[in-house]
């Protein structure tokens, strides 16, 4: 009898074995839940609930691409199993958090916090606290909100201090003794940052002044450089209703595409010498500027009141070639691993739309309750995601 059960179990394991390379999650921000989806047939596999306040939630993946770590606004860190569609573990690690990253070796998960300002690092397996790094500045008793947290090669995490105007590089090789290198006076109010897909350059956007701060991780002793110092100077900027995002894969060929702050423009930067290569007038204030995985097109969504529209830029001609109107509240976009389709969350329609990136037709529509971030499992194997 024992053997029969054992054999049956073994058999069912083989019969129902499933890979995770085409799975992903969609954040349902109002209900504190996520949809687990697959992007081969574009369908919903299930819903995982009980994740707390998910406004501005984001996620990273374990290196086996089976578990997703979701960072919630309320400071909750949740570990989800995509295969069993269950919440494995959840810890309240702070009062107010903004995002996270997973280490190069996949063993540490770092979370950046607004309150108390700093970064906390957890064991990816157990979610036990491994290191606490308060973002102290000034006379040492102020705590800064932390943004733009990414992983970097050589087991490092990098992040920026919104209030302090600093960039910190933390080497976690020895988990008991994090080695922190601080770069000060990098510019006023860094709002988000990206790391290039090769893990070499960390680029922070500045809200409080013109230009961007650039750190070359291959030449740390060079310090932080200011690039595009004249960008936006003297221009009357529009009110910024939503902070733009910077993401690692807004790099296409030799160009980096980034949202301009307070202007209806996408900024093109030549990544060979980090000078301005052009400005593309767009429909509104860009929020996400994301290159298709092959870099041929760049998709852009916008802040209110223009968040019903998406534009597509040709990365060769640097012109807008397509405008789509999926509906109010287009909050996020995620390309499938090789870019033939892109998923768009349309918050106010409670819908996620899947577009063909060649002819821009809608291939599928899935229900999701006020969807925001969409995160596919291939992020498990990308630096900076």
């Amino acid at each position, binding site marked *: 009898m024992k053997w029969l059960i054992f054999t049956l179990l073994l058999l069912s394991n083989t019969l129902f074995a499933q890979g995770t390379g085409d799975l992903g999650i969609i954040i349902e*921000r*109002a209900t504190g839940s996520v949809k687990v989806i697959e992007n081969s047939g574009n369908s919903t596999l299930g819903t995982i609930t009980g994740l707390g*306040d*998910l*406004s*501005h939630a984001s996620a990273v993946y374990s290196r086996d691409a089976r578990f997703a770590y979701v960072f919630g*606004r*309320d400071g909750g860190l949740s570990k989800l199993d995509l295969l069993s569609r269950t919440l494995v573990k959840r810890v309240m690690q702070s009062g*107010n958090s*903004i995002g996270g990253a997973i280490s190069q070796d996949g063993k540490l998960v770092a979370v950046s916090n*607004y*309150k108390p300002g700093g970064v906390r690092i957890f064991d990816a397996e157990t979610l036990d606290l491994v290191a606490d790094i308060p973002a102290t500045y000034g006379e040492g008793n102020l705590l800064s*909100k932390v943004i733009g947290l990414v992983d970097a090669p050589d087991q490092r995490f990098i992040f920026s201090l*919104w209030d302090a105007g600093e960039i910190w590089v933390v080497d976690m090789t020895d988990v008991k003794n994090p080695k922190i290198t601080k770069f000060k006076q990098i510019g006023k*109010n860094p*709002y988000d940052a990206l790391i290039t897909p090769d893990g070499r350059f960390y680029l922070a956007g500045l*809200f409080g002044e013109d230009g961007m701060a650039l750190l070359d991780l291959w030449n740390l002793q060079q310090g932080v450089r200011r690039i595009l110092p004249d960008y936006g100077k003297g221009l009357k900027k529009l*009110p*910024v*209703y*939503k*902070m733009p995002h910077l993401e690692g894969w807004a790099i296409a060929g030799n160009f980096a595409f980034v949202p301009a702050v307070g202007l209806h423009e996408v900024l093109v930067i030549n990544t060979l010498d980090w000078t301005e290569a052009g400005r593309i007038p767009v429909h509104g204030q860009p929020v996400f500027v994301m290159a298709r995985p092959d870099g041929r097109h760049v998709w852009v969504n916008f802040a*209110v*009141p223009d968040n019903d529209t998406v534009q597509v830029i040709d990365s060769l001609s640097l012109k807008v070639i397509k405008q789509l109107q999926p509906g109010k*509240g287009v909050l996020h976009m995620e390309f499938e691993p090789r870019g033939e389709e892109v998923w768009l969350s349309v*918050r*106010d329609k409670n819908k996620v739309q899947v577009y063909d990136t060649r002819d821009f037709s809608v291939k599928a529509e899935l229900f999701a309750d006020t969807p925001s971030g969409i995160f596919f499992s291939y992020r498990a194997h990308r630096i900076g995601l």
Partner: protein
Amino acid sequence: MKVLLLNMGLSLVITSSTLLAQTPVDNIEQSRQAELLHLLIQDCGSCHGLTLKGGLGPALLPENLTGKPVSFLTYTILNGRPGTAMPPWKGLLKPEEAEWIAAKLVKGVQP
């Protein structure tokens, strides 16, 4: 001096809007109220948190707003706070709509 002038400016605004104050709800269509509540939760929420417990911007729960009159909040919504990330919303909101939102914040928002 600057602070004094700002305070005077503010109190002028406060006085005038208090004088003009009617219940803003009376002049705003039901459907627009629904839109405003949506904007409050979703768009204010992108910085202040969907539950208004704070984020890049400060928490906006009733207990965080004690001592801040509706007129002051209305002024802040319409004109923003220079030197911070709080934008002026007067391009998208009418004064009475901002006042409706401010009153909602003071009372507490049920999402």
